[in-house]
């Protein structure tokens, strides 16, 4: 097992991400339906499908593939999710631009750059009941694990867990952002759709990279 993976596997990794979103189209819409307008899975699946088709059969580095994903979401989804996930993936791409081999340190930078870009267009905080609640703990946990000298694989595993408990933490929150915030107390008791999709994406990313590390 290596401590880096090749950026050449970009198409595979991004297609894995697309597949997990497409597979969860209805699940995500259902969550959004409880306190939102029920379109989260629809919008996300529409964007990721378009991207998957675009990159199919190509050879691309991960930064190129993420750039493609970012562009597609921004151009194919619109709404709020286009800019939000578009910025996140644009940041990820920036964080590993030009790298042929991606180490845990590189990956930590990638995650951090993604969060930075996202914060450029969103003021949302942890606790607002949104995708930040899955994303921020995941980014922090991964960095922390790397600083502590844990293996890439172990750090990914911890990141995935952090995203999951971050997602679960949204259940008891009152939404402070987005459409659900209109419901006040009534928004408590169900998961946040954006946190759920973000958790799916981070979990799939961890698995896909783990597979690369085992090659």
């Amino acid at each position, binding site marked *: 097992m290596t401590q880096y993976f090749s950026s050449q596997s970009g198409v595979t990794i991004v297609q894995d991400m697309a597949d997990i979103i497409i597979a969860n189209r209805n699940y995500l819409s259902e969550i959004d339906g409880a306190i939102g*307008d029920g*379109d989260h899975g*629809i919008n996300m699946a529409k964007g990721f499908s378009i991207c998957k088709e675009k990159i199919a059969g190509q050879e691309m580095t991960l930064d190129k593939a993420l750039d493609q994903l970012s562009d597609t979401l921004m151009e194919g989804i*619109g*709404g*709020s999710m286009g800019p939000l996930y578009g910025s996140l993936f644009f940041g990820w791409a920036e964080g590993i631009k030009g790298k042929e081999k991606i180490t845990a340190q590189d990956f930590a930078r990638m995650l951090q750059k993604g969060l930075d870009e996202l914060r450029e267009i969103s003021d949302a905080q942890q606790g607002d009941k949104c995708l930040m609640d899955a994303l921020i703990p995941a980014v922090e946990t991964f960095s922390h694990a790397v600083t502590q000298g844990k293996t890439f694989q172990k750090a990914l595993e911890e990141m995935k867990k952090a995203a999951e408990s971050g997602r679960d933490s949204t259940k008891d929150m009152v939404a402070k952002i987005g459409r659900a915030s*209109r419901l006040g107390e009534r928004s408590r008791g169900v998961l946040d759709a954006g946190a759920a999709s973000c958790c799916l994406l981070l979990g799939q990313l961890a698995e896909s990279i783990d597979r690369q590390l085992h090659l």
Partner: protein
Amino acid sequence: MKRIVNDPDRLVEDGIEGYLAAYPQFYEKTENPRTLKRPQAPVKGKVGVVTGGGSGHEPAFLGYVGEGLLDAVAIGEVFSSPTAGAFLDAIKAAESGAGVVCLYGNYAGDNMNVKMAIKKAKAANIAVKTVMANDDVASAPKTEREKRRGVAGEILMWKVGGAAAAMGYDLDGVAQISQKAIDMCRSIGVGLSACTIPAVGKPNFTIADGKMEIGIGHHGEPGVDITDWKPAHETAKIMLEHVVEDKPFERGEEVVVLVSGLGSTPVIELYVYYAEIAKLLKEKGIIVHKCYVGNYFTSLDMMGVTLTIMGLDEELKKMVDYPVNSLALVQK
């Protein structure tokens, strides 16, 4: 399914096809399937005027493309901001060298997408100014006007900006007077029943029977008060008070009044409502220079009505009276 659609996920695509088929005199394709322009755009020497927004508000936004009004429009999914690319392509379609104003509404998605589009437009050496509508008094207190949503006041902002551009104002001039127009505007809505996004298939909120929601937003955003149903004259009074006090509009002031149905309210009821507004304004000594009553900015099949009042000075009056020729608005 009570809707006239094919695949509800393709509602917007199919709708755009219909607009193009029905009115080639008003609409022309661009390279971006989510951006339409008027055939004359870009008009040489004229500041371009563009907007964009989610679908489901018809005749907004597309209906206001035309002579003396908008040059191009970016089209989003139902109740969803257009992409940054669609905004950018609207800007490009309207640019003839004199610069472009993008006059849009204050929603999270639109803000983000417009911001990104502007960045790219500037990188492509297009001079762009933006004006963001925030006329909905119910969406935030007066001390936080920057948080307020843009609603039907956008139409008057487009009307004024479009007229100024047609009259030869330069980019700064068009932006300034559009800003003045929206600063002079105050709006509020009342909802009586919820709307249904066709792709979702069921209402995404409810208004209980016998209740009405004062201050509801154009996508069902929460209002300031859920009250028992009230007759038109009381509803009109409550809405007018919100609007008049907020600015405030003063005795002797000349105004434009725009009353829009939200989609399902029969047109005759809009006139019942306007009769009350006219009476109340007269009592307050506020002078109606011009009024618009109809379905100008809807929310799919929501029942309800919105009230928009814009204060006028001599310059704005000229702009409001300027001729326009669009699908939704024709003035000689």
